[in-house]
């Protein structure tokens, strides 16, 4: 078990509910991931009459922690209004704060993010900000009251993995008190493991599972990768070296190893 915000959960994988081929596959994939936290959004009632009710009932049946997002917002004002609506609709003070600053890369707007964070923290929200890996921004978000930071691994939906591991590693080193979750850009289980091996507290992903040929199997793979990465971090990775070191003992090697042709050449 580990603590995220005010709750104790088992899994360090947070999973999205979008883009699955069907509601049934979504449910099976989320179950297979063994995630305890699932992200949702809120939208206008669609013209075809779909009112979100069946989706919501399905999700509620999974009995997980709900993390609503403010996806699609481009200003602090929009995001604050959306967060307030989400709190009433989903009955949670958790909010994944997402404010887009650039439509091409879906890069978060750091200035609006900070502005909205201050207001939402003042209104009692637990803010999970989707942010970049900028250290100064992350420090300011923490000063504004965030316990949790969710820097991107890569732009949303790209599946490129951790495109700036140096910055992410530095964030972990410099902000040991923060709950750090890599959000967005994960494409493969190895990416999720890499983030966890660095000491990140969790990984949030959606597209990599939802768009896999077999979402249920990929969800299971992601869950295992996150667990494996965390276990490796706790075990402590060996230091990387530039020169080879034999792993098998050299003492007591048979006589043929002592022939002159086995002497190292330079």
């Amino acid at each position: 078990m580990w603590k995220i915000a005010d709750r104790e959960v088992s899994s360090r994988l947070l999973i999205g509910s979008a883009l699955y081929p069907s509601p049934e596959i979504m449910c099976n994939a989320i179950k297979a991931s063994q995630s305890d936290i699932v992200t949702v959004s809120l939208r206008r009632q669609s013209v075809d009459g779909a009112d979100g009710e069946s989706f919501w009932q399905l999700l509620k049946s999974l009995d997980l922690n709900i993390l609503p997002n403010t996806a699609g917002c481009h200003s602090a004002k929009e995001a604050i209004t959306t967060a307030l609506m989400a709190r009433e609709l989903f009955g949670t003070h958790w909010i994944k704060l997402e404010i887009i600053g650039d439509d091409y890369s879906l890069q978060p707007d750091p200035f609006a993010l900070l502005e909205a964070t201050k207001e939402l923290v003042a209104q009692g929200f637990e803010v999970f900000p989707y942010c970049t890996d900028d250290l100064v921004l992350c420090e300011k978000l923490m000063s504004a009251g965030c316990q949790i930071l969710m820097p991107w691994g890569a732009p949303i939906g790209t599946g490129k993995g951790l495109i700036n591991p140096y910055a992410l590693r530095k964030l972990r080193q410099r902000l040991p008190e923060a709950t750090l979750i890599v959000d967005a850009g994960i494409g493969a289980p190895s990416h999720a493991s890499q983030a966890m091996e660095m000491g990140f507290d969790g990984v949030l992903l959606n597209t990599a599972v939802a768009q896999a040929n077999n979402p249920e199997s990929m969800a299971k793979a992601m869950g295992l990768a996150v667990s494996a990465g965390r276990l490796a971090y706790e075990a402590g990775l060996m230091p990387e070296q530039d020169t080879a070191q034999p792993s098998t003992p050299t003492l007591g090697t048979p006589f043929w190893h002592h022939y002159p042709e086995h002497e190292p050449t330079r």
Partner: protein
Amino acid sequence: MNIVLNGKAVEIPETANLQAFFESLNNEDAAITLPRQFAVAVNAQFVPRSQYPNIILQEGDDLELLVPMQGG
């Protein structure tokens, strides 16, 4: 009286407060079917459920009525 509901112009009875407006949506000939779970903003301001009876709709008001949806 004309208002905008989720981006669509609709005509509603005069002097309706938000509570009365939502109740009127239960009629068969209503502009939309009222979802079971929703949250509302009027002119981009969130309106808590407890405030519905106190909000008098004005000509040209812009209502956003949002429902749960899949998200990442």
